[in-house]
């Protein structure tokens, strides 16, 4: 099942199971198709592209759904 990450009390949790996923930025460990709630825009975003850059950097493109 695709992840759906939401910030709750300062922690990022997967709304599918309530588990705390990680601390830090909410798109860091997501894959294509996963979703997160953007607390700045208030929108639910879905990951569309992940593009590797350099040694282990990456560019993540997501669009509101």
């Amino acid at each position, binding site marked *: 099942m695709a992840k759906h990450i939401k910030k709750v009390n300062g922690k990022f949790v997967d709304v599918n199971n309530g588990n705390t996923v990680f601390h830090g930025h909410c*798109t860091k460990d997501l894959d294509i198709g996963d979703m997160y709630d953007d607390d700045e825009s208030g929108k639910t975003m879905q990951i569309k592209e992940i593009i590797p850059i350099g*040694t*282990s950097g990456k560019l993540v493109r997501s669009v509101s759904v």
Partner: protein
Amino acid sequence: MGRPEFETIVASAARESLNSVDLSVDGATTPIAAGATENIDLFSSSGTIGHIQSAYLNALAPIGATTGTHLLNITSGSQRGGFTQGTSNFGSDILFNQKSWILADNAKLPSSDSAQVAAFNDNVFDSAISLRFVYTNNTDAVQTGFRIYRMTYVEKVIGS
């Protein structure tokens, strides 16, 4: 879909590297609906800090729009509030080049070129906290035009 091109130049015993990103997102195949948002998150390599040097950001005016605005925002993925933002009316493009807004006919934040440069120069990111580019289509038409996100940044190895 996007057509990315990347280049990495490693120098100084791999303690610093210069990276460039060229992402052109074709709105014909990846449209942005009226009221929708596109986020582009840039993460540096593990064990490095990224420091943005320059950027070229372009969004065409949504074809067929009759009201509203669209905007580009440069921010951190970890905090609310943008570092700098350009907003154009429905009939105009948005263009950011190097370190400031060239075309944003509704509003530029900060308003002065020097303040925009200062806000842009403060941006750092790493492998966990991104530098985020946000495009928001607040017009009444679907954005079917190109969005271009080009940037050059330096990665510095932590502790070097």
